[in-house]
């Protein structure tokens, strides 16, 4: 039997508008907050206004008597019921895992920590009653800065731990046997460049605030939640509360964005779960935007000390990265692992023979950090691509030329890096050549030279970022070696309905990615059915009990293979049925263009999968031993990560009088392998680049010295709108991932990973003649201006 990968004029590769959009943009869907169950109570949460304090008393008397209020409870009241928040990624044997009660018991460790809960008949009554709860706090010393937190005598976030150090994780290529010794490279280097980069703290800022509804009244307790990870949530709810897993059903209905911010199992979910069980009534908790900013996990927040060594000819010989990573006050499900996801990417696309990475996780009295789009890899790529530019300046080389001299050539794949990853494929020269052509690199360099010579107030800067990333999380074996508690496989089921329509159950959990559309395109080609005849089910543990959800650009790269394998099994199961219907030998059949036919007999009779499905439904006349179903399941565990790559180029104009940065042009050429739906891929690149630009120029979560979040609304935490972003020029090269039946590599994070260093490199490049060697992110006008002022002062007021 032969299975044809793709029909001419097939669905894969086609710009399909997304199936899910009609319901999403017309409001004809049920977000979690739209759910209303009979007798449902509304929860509101009192949150700590202090960053660190002992709770000495909570008076809920007045709140209990307030109109509409049914119950008020504290952590003490539900101590036996609420469970404890899990962390599933202790990255070292001695990782400190502090107790993390969903509702605080005696002590609060960051502003915004839940302290007490009101359950009322309506949301307004619940919110009004919050103001009647009196909490007495005895302030404790606050520690916010990571280096201060590690100093002797620093206030402790967790007394019981005896330290603010969560872990130290090291990858040394000499010790691991994956490369040479960094120390030797530093001793022998002709050029050494060291820099400290700051990855500021960011807020994921998903569009739909988090919301949870829990119904305890059935045989199973059902939780609807605005989550990226319904399957992981069910397992951890069970493990964290002791309620048996089969008595829990989790549903992620349409979810309005996540960006990693909903790759979390949250105290609010545990609190709602406890409240529903305590009251034996359905409950709903929907956070306000301010609560989301304050208490949903943040991202990034690292101090990066980077050293690169090289020869004068531009050959990079080694790289070392020492990181401090801010954990915040508690550990979310994969908080410690986020920087480790970056540990393997500091080599980027280059052939450094020596590499050393050391990361120390640090507790502070801040909101916990965890996954945010890219999760560790944007941080790594930023540091690498920034220091490559600094090295280029040191060597007097064009930054693209330095990269060319060091990157892995297309004929050198598979290539094992000093970090120990084996890159399967890539063509960095091709993507870079295409990007420079679209960008007009040489003409912009000429204009830059002219403006520099003229001493223009507005200077032009050009930034380069050539990146790769590890996507398709993840080979379970590797995750086990990294002490992650779960696997990285994905599953899919394909159900042939009697009338020839198809239901697909995926273990991925889309929250804006368009899986319903892309999966339908894949299935349409695999099974020879119409795009419209495929329904994709997801995000309900009753429909899809098995899955590892959506994050880390994994859904297509991993889940897509499971889907293809399940489709192939359906075809295999249908083969004897078709042969029986065609009165032919199965060995003589082929499945092409969506139908079974006898090989080499054009014009002969055919049977479609729909014919087979109906025959199986009737089962009046099936061959012996054939089951009355064509349904098939598949689970796929990748053997390697996938490695998208690309080249992003950015030109900025910097007004040296005001410090204002304006992006003049931006070109993104990405290689994400085979593209299923170009429209979706373009959308992912646009959104990703927007978020990466946002880190470079606009966004920063800031605390005051007492640990109050200063950026608690969108007035202070400035996410860009379309008006603040440039037109993006996007293009692709397509180097299919070898061994992947779809050739796909993943695209969800590429834009975010690539864009931030491209923008900052451009800003620094613009200001280089003024003596500026770095600008801290975000490059706001005042920060750019004050950096220029400092450089001028250092140079005696003269241009260099």
């Amino acid at each position, binding site marked *: 039997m032969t299975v044809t990968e793709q029909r001419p004029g097939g669905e894969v590769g086609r710009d399909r508008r997304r199936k899910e959009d009609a319901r999403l943009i017309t409001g004809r869907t049920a977000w979690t907050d739209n759910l209303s169950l009979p007798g449902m109570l509304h929860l509101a949460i009192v949150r700590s206004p202090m960053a660190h304090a002992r709770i000495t008393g909570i008076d809920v008397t007045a709140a209990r008597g307030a109109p509409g209020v049914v119950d008020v409870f504290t952590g003490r009241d539900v101590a036996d019921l609420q469970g404890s928040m899990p962390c599933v990624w202790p990255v070292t044997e001695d990782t400190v895992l502090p107790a993390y009660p969903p509702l605080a018991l005696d002590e609060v460790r960051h502003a915004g920590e839940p302290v007490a809960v009101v359950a009322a008949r309506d*949301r*307004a009554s619940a*919110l*009004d009653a919050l*103001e009647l709860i009196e909490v007495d706090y005895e302030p404790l010393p606050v520690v916010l800065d990571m280096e201060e937190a590690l100093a002797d005598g620093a206030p402790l976030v967790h007394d019981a731990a005896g330290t603010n150090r969560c872990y130290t994780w090291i990858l040394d290529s000499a010790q691991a046997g994956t490369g040479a010794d960094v120390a030797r490279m530093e001793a022998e280097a002709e050029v050494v460049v060291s820099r400290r980069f700051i990855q500021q703290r960011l807020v994921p800022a998903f569009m739909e605030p988090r919301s949870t509804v829990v119904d305890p009244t059935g045989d199973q307790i059902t939780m609807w939640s605005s989550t990226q990870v319904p399957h992981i949530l069910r397992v951890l709810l069970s493990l964290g509360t002791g309620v048996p897993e089969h008595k829990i059903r989790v549903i992620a209905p349409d979810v309005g964005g996540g960006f990693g911010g909903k790759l979390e199992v949250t105290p609010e979910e545990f609190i709602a779960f406890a409240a529903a069980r305590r009251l034996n009534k359905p409950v709903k908790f929907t956070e*306000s935007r*301010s609560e989301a900013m304050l208490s949903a996990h943040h991202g990034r927040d690292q101090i990066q000390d980077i050293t690169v060594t090289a020869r004068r000819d531009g050959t990079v010989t080694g790289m070392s990265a020492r990181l401090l990573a801010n954990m915040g006050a508690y550990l979310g499900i994969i908080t410690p692992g986020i920087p480790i996801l970056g540990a393997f990417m500091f080599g980027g696309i280059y052939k450094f023979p020596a590499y050393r990475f050391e990361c120390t996780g640090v507790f502070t009295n801040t909101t916990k950090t965890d996954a945010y789009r890219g999760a560790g890899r944007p941080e790594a790529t930023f540091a690498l691509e920034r220091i490559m530019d600094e090295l280029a300046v040191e060597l007097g080389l064009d930054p693209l030329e330095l990269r060319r001299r060091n990157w892995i050539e297309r004929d050198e794949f598979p290539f094992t890096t000093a970090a120990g990853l084996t890159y399967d494929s890539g063509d960095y020269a091709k993507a870079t050549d295409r990007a420079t052509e679209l960008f007009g690199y040489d003409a912009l360099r000429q204009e830059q030279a002219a403006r520099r010579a003229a001493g223009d107030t507005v200077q032009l800067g050009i930034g380069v970022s050539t990146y790769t990333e590890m996507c398709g999380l993840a080979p379970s074996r590797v995750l086990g070696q990294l002490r992650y508690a779960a696997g990285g496989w994905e599953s899919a089921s394909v159900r042939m309905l009697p009338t020839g329509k198809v239901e697909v159950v995926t273990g991925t959990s889309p929250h804006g990615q368009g899986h319903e559309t892309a999966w339908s395109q894949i299935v349409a080609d695999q099974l020879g059915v119409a795009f419209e005849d495929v329904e994709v089910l997801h995000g309900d543990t009753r429909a899809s009990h098995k899955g590892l959800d959506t994050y880390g650009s994994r859904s297509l790269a991993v889940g897509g293979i499971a889907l293809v394998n399940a489709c192939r099994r359906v075809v295999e199961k249908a083969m004897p049925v078709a042969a029986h219907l065609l009165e032919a030998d199965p060995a003589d059949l082929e499945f092409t263009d969506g139908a079974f036919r006898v090989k080499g007999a054009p014009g002969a009779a055919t049977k479609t999968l729909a014919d087979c499905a109906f025959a199986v439904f009737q089962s009046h006349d099936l061959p012996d031993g054939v089951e009355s179903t064509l349904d098939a399941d598949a689970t796929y565990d990748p053997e390697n990560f996938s490695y998208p790559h690309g080249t992003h180029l950015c030109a900025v104009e910097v007004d040296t*009088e*005001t410090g*204002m940065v304006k992006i003049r042009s931006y070109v993104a050429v990405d290689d994400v392998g085979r593209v299923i739906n170009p429209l979706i891929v373009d959308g992912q690149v646009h959104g990703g680049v927007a978020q990466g630009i946002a880190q470079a*120029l*606009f966004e920063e979560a*800031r605390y005051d010295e007492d640990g109050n979040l*200063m*950026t608690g*609304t969108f*007035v*202070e935490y*400035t996410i*860009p*709108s379309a*008006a*603040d972003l440039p037109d993006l020029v996007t293009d692709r090269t397509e180097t299919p991932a070898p061994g992947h039946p779809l050739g796909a590599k993943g695209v969800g994070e590429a834009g975010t990973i690539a864009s931030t260093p491209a923008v900052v490199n451009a800003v620094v490049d613009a200001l280089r003649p003024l003596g500026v060697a770095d600008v801290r992110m975000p490059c*706001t*006008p*005042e920060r750019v*201006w*004050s950096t220029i002022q400092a450089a001028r002062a250092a140079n005696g007021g003269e241009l260099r």
Partner: protein
Amino acid sequence: MIPAPFDYTRVATVEDAVAALAGAGEDGKVLAGGQSLLPMLRLRLAAPTMLVDLGGVAELRGVRDDGDALIIGAMTTHDEVVKHPLVREHAPLIAQAAETVGDRQIRHLGTFGGSLAHADPAGDLPGVALALDAVMSVAGPGGMRDVRASEFFVDYFTTALGPGDVLVSVRVPKLTGWTTHYEKFHQMAQSWSVVGVAAAVRRSNGSIAEARVALTNMGVTPVRAHGVEEALAGAPATADAVATAAARAADGASPLTDGVASAEYRTHLASVLTKRAVMAAGGL
């Protein structure tokens, strides 16, 4: 979040509004376009017990010609102001500044008078009113009175309006023979001014006969840059002369350091933006 509970009344006349506010006492608050007040209520930064909604008061809307001045009704929306032919002809500075307020949705709901009465130091229209020597017409328990812009903005989010007062309209003298420009500086399209400069210039025979410059967000209230105005009066209409004058932009101003910018940066911006605003206003 949702606001704390409050009572609400929608009135049809200015007289009724004044009466309703008198009944509410200190805890009453006028609701105009709601673009600043409602977010404050939702964050519970303000908790008035009575909102008096002026949305139904027809006499508060519109722009009319009053000879040597325009009368702009306090409830005229930013969008109406931006598009109004009289404003565009006789007070283009207002149209230009109003067009930078918030986003399109906000400009369709937010009002000219609401912005002035709210007196956000980062708001753009108070500085413009100050530059244009506008006069506010106020209805209160004691009847009608006029308050000049220079006396209207009293402090941080505080005006000469008492708790029982309603801003009825704004009288804006027509600036015949003048040219104007509003230079707004902000990083994000929808964010408030870090600093803004409203400039009006009257040129005569290659020199600047007169200039008016008012600064947004260079203190708790908008301020006139008197030093710049003095230096420009009679100065040659040249970039050098403007730059020299603009260097005095922050003289006497007391800019704040806040989460958006430092006082030092604002001081620097005031000069840069004043230079740009005057150059643009003067057609230089």
